[in-house]
């Protein structure tokens, strides 16, 4: 009970303003408040129950289970008999960094993120700035067009792009043929396969960055812009001195969400290249899927999942710190 009283006393707890401090210890009003609080307590927990049950079963428990599994030799037979898995300590983790495929997957995922995230943010910002540059006609039309790839299933998009990039029947090969250029076999080339996947991912995700930047841009008061213009700021100065600093919170959110998404890249290589040619598009998630569900090295795959999670956490924290510091 002491905790609840303490909480009622904290600012923002609702009824404090109504009940004068002096009466706070008295039995009358405080009793009523405690009464309401306990009523809220019960209903608060009842309203939380469905989410909490689902959360515990399908999130908290699996997160812990993945960690435990990563210290075992969990394999196919353990799917029916989980408790017979043997504890192997850190074996899976040490094995990971001797696994050439994993090191390659780590490198490929990094490549995908380092090129893909800035391109997505850059093109999204460019589109948003163009849409916000005082054009009044067709704005919705363009916005809808740019956002369309975001709402479509990645699997379908990957299938479409595989065809667009097809060396014999594809759109790009055909256009090249018309111009008299021999286009390369994008997805069949070790050097070009990953850039092709990045291009597709940028194409698909640009729209969601754009919408967020557009909302951020519209939140900048026009007076600020006009004042800058009166003071003689050019377009680029205005962009650098006003738009970029005021967009920083949006930038932070877009950067974090895009990075998390790109670090987990799976569907694009799964559908388009199967990780090839010669593992040049094998990503961490795809490698994890193969080890876990094709070969049933589930302990090993769990260790991989955790390494990926730690990477996501580290990069997100770093981004939050870097971008936040500049704001203050």
């Amino acid at each position, binding site marked *: 009970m002491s905790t609840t009283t303490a909480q009622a006393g904290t600012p923002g707890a609702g009824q404090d303003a109504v009940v004068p401090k002096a009466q706070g210890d008295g039995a009358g009003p405080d009793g009523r408040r405690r009464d309401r609080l306990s009523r809220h307590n019960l209903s608060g927990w009842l309203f939380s129950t469905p989410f909490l049950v689902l959360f515990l079963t399908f999130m908290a428990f699996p997160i812990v*289970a993945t960690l435990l599994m990563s210290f075992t030799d969990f394999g196919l037979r353990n799917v029916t008999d989980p408790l017979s898995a043997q504890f192997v300590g850190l074996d899976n983790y040490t094995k990971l960094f001797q696994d050439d495929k994993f090191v390659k997957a780590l490198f490929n995922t990094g490549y995908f993120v380092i090129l893909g995230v800035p391109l997505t943010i850059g093109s999204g910002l460019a589109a948003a700035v163009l849409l916000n540059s005082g054009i009044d006609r067709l704005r919705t039309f363009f916005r809808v067009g740019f956002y369309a790839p975001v709402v479509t299933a990645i699997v379908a998009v990957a299938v479409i792009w595989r065809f667009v990039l097809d060396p014999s029947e594809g759109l790009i090969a055909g256009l090249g043929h018309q111009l008299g250029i021999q286009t390369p076999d994008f997805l069949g080339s070790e050097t070009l396969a990953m850039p092709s996947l990045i291009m597709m991912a940028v194409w698909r995700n640009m729209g969601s960055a754009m919408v967020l930047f557009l909302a951020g841009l*519209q939140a900048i008061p026009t007076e600020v812009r006009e004042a800058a213009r009166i003071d003689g700021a050019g377009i680029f100065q205005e962009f650098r001195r006003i738009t970029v600093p005021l967009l920083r919170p949006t930038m932070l959110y877009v950067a974090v969400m895009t990075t998390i998404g790109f670090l987990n890249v799976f*569907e694009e290589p799964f559908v388009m290249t199967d990780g090839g040619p010669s593992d040049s598009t094998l990503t961490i998630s795809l490698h994890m899927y193969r080890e876990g569900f094709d070969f049933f090295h589930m302990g090993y795959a769990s260790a991989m999942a955790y390494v990926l999670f730690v990477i996501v956490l580290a990069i997100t924290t770093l981004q939050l710190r870097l971008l936040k510091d500049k704001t203050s």
Partner: protein
Amino acid sequence: MSTTETRAPLAAPASKARRDPAARARRTLVYVLLTVGLIVTVAPFLWMALSSFKTQRELGASPPVWWPSEWTLDNFRELLDRMDVGQALFNSLLVAVFVTVCNLLFCSMLGYALAKLNFAGKRPIFGIVLGALMVPGNLMLLPMFVMMSAMGLIDSYAALILPFAAGAFGVFLMRQFIQAIPDELLEAARMDGAREWYIFWRIVLPLVKPALATLSIFVFLGSWNNFLWPLVATNDPAKYTLPVALATFATDPTQADGSNGVLMAGAFLVVLPVLLVFVLLQRFFTQGIATAGLK
């Protein structure tokens, strides 16, 4: 969105700009750049849609044929022969509807509790919600498969629905909107002796209908497009969702030859309903994203 406020001050410079050649040139440049961007964005979709109606001969033609000279439904016919589209469509729809309904209910319940009820545990629960926003789904994949296998739920609708029945994003979104409802309104109802459930069901939910609309679009779409878990949780083609059926077909090495037209027909069927709904409801999409992202 405050279009009226932002448009008014811009109207004056716009009329002046009409006479100013530099401003006009700039405006033209903006339209040109946007149009180029739009062509790049839309071309793959157009290519897909048109290709799904092309004959085998025109699919392989070089130089490429944009507009099919003879339209054919052969690709769709072959798709229906090789893949159980009807079943996959039904599965996707069933799963998405159940997931959406569950999310609407459970997320707004917790959203209400977090926004308007004072209870011990409110802070840690909100912390959990924020934390859950950050956790990638890959982390739960392996034990979830083991769990579902142990319960005999692989290849069941339950396996496809339950893990997504409530999401942190939804709770966060609903909390934002419910917080805006004045406390006095709820207090008045409480004075009249209304129970919390009644207040939630009869007062709060009707007031946040736009938020519910936004949430249902996002959840439905997320479920419709979801891939990795349905891929893991189903082995029986009769339980495949559309993306899984399409991907299985697309990555099957025995289907490799001459199936581009059929694949485009498949992609067309997966993408078309979503694009239609999106164009009709685009306002909710972009507003919802902006609201959820910025507040």
